[in-house]
């Protein structure tokens, strides 16, 4: 069965639920792990689960790096995952064309989160001489999300490119103008 809303010169629709739902699910997993780590940082819970690295998680979660910002960094991560979930869920299977702004916000939410996660992974052994299993897991989740989110973003950017070359308003198309979406493939 052929899928509707397949972008030109593509062989699948990157906005189908089959493409988006796995990302939303792993973002939810990341969010709950980050909330758990944040709960330890503000001492809503007294202990944090660490199967491999002894007191590594505690050292990292109590480190000065984790307290640079006014709120615990794990809660910021949880907010990032929440943004991924929300922007991943909103919109129909034609959203690469009908809601390019949402797709691009989704891509922007996923990309930097992955980069920040990697910086935090690097900082663990370099500055603190410690590792944190759950922090590593959330970093892997962030990185795994990057590429699957980028295909939808590319489809939207290509659509905006076609709008621009047609001489129509990219600004209006970006915000999902229906007339333009009907006019441009």
């Amino acid at each position, binding site marked *: 069965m052929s899928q509707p809303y397949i972008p*030109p*010169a593509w062989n699948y629709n990157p906005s189908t639920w089959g493409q988006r739902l796995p990302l939303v699910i792993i973002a939810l997993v990341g969010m709950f792990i980050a909330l758990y780590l944040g709960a330890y940082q503000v001492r809503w819970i007294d202990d944090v689960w660490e199967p491999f690295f002894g007191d590594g998680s505690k050292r990292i979660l109590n480190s000065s790096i984790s307290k640079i910002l006014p709120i615990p960094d794990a809660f910021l991560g949880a907010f990032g995952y929440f943004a991924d979930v929300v922007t991943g869920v909103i919109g129909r299977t034609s959203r690469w064309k009908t809601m390019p702004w949402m797709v691009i916000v989704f891509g922007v939410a996923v990309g930097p989160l992955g980069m920040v996660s990697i910086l935090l992974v690097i900082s663990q*052994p370099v500055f603190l001489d410690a590792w944190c299993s759950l922090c590593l897991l959330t970093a892997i989740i962030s*990185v*795994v999300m990057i*590429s*699957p989110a980028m295909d939808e973003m590319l489809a939207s950017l290509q659509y905006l490119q076609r709008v621009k070359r047609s001489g129509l308003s990219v600004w209006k198309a970006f915000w999902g103008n229906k007339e333009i979406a009907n006019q441009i493939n």
Partner: protein
Amino acid sequence: MRLQIVNILTGLFIMLIPYLWDYHKELSVHNYITGPLIITFAITALWEINRNARWLNIPVAAWLIISSVLFRDDQVIYPNIIAAIVVIILSAIKRKSKSIYGGGWRSLFQKNPPHMQQANNKV
């Protein structure tokens, strides 16, 4: 995909090398930086649409070789060198793509990319 999986495992191995060969801090820092980066770029390159992310692992692995030579002191650096060479070789191998993704990321900078050609044909 298999090549990138081997690169992910090699990146993991690079992170473990300082523990296995008891590296001093100045040398091990480079493993802790390059290992996660190699894993990140290899995971990103697992998906066909970002297959070119594999190229980013070449300078990262090259830096591992250079830093190993610069900060070696009396340490055994052949594990780093071998791991970096594996990453460089596997990152340089080009695989044929099954899909063209409307011309991919480079289409955004082309005059008449495939997605535009097909869209024009449909009209």
